[in-house]
């Protein structure tokens, strides 16, 4: 069943607060092989002009993946996750994510398309601090093969 075009623009509630920790940043940096001390050493991060250790590029996925998952599980969307592949991903940062950030992720459906028997779902997740300071946006396009 093809995705309903009326879904475009549908917004979802903000996520629970995600507390960004130094250990999680270090774990992620290890996983991608990012060795820069600014990801592990608060003194090095401060010397580079940051208030605390900063996360490497793409770290936002650790919170936006589940936020975008809320959309996939919406009964009106009902994407068959077993047929889903990740088509595209974009990040736009106002500033780096850093340890101590208390972040909230808010998803919005940006686009739905059916191309060649596949459903394409584009979801934007806006990430801001609990106090409303925009930090980054993560836009993902998922391709559900053969479901359209």
């Amino acid at each position, binding site marked *: 069943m093809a995705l309903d075009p009326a879904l475009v623009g549908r917004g979802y509630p903000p996520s629970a607060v995600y507390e960004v920790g130094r250990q*999680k940043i270090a*774990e*992620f940096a*290890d*996983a*991608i*092989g*990012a060795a*820069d001390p*600014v*990801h592990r050493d608060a003194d090095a991060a401060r010397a*580079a*002009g*940051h208030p605390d250790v*900063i996360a*490497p*590029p*793409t770290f936002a*996925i*650790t919170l936006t*993946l*589940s936020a975008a998952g809320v959309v996939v599980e919406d009964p009106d969307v009902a994407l068959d996750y*077993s047929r889903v*592949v*990740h*088509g*595209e*991903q*974009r*990040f*736009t*940062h106002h*500033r*780096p994510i850093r340890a101590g950030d208390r972040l909230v992720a808010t998803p919005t459906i940006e686009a739905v398309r059916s191309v060649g028997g596949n459903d394409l779902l584009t979801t934007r997740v806006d990430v801001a601090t609990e106090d409303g300071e925009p930090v980054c946006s993560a836009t993902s396009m998922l391709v559900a093969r053969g479901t359209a």
Partner: protein
Amino acid sequence: MTATVRAADVAVGTELPEQTYPVTRTDLVRYAGASGDFNPIHWNERVATEVGLPGVIAHGMLTMALAARAVTAWTGDPAALVEYHVRFGRPVVVPDDGTGAQVTVRGKVGALGEDGRARVDLTVTSGGEKVLSLARATVQLA
């Protein structure tokens, strides 16, 4: 807080140093834990082949992160990467053979703005095939 590469030192066409990153099955396990993506196609051969893949494949997001490392290696500053857009192409198949796969990243400055922002166009391959059909990073240069 901005990059150590200066806008005055680069031009459209400036090439980034080529980087190659190994990816093993262990890396996929570690990345699954770190990212929260436990999709079994990234660690379970049976499931990967059942859904028609040649074998266990790397998370697209891991490949995206590795390609970003090449950009950060060039700028000298992870915070300089302000925008990043990729389109996932061929999967990175990671065999369970003790060696795994290699991801190679080449980059070139595609555009340069008045504000010191540069667009870097990346070519990301593994086993001779493009694994990202589009990969563009915008960096804020010093």
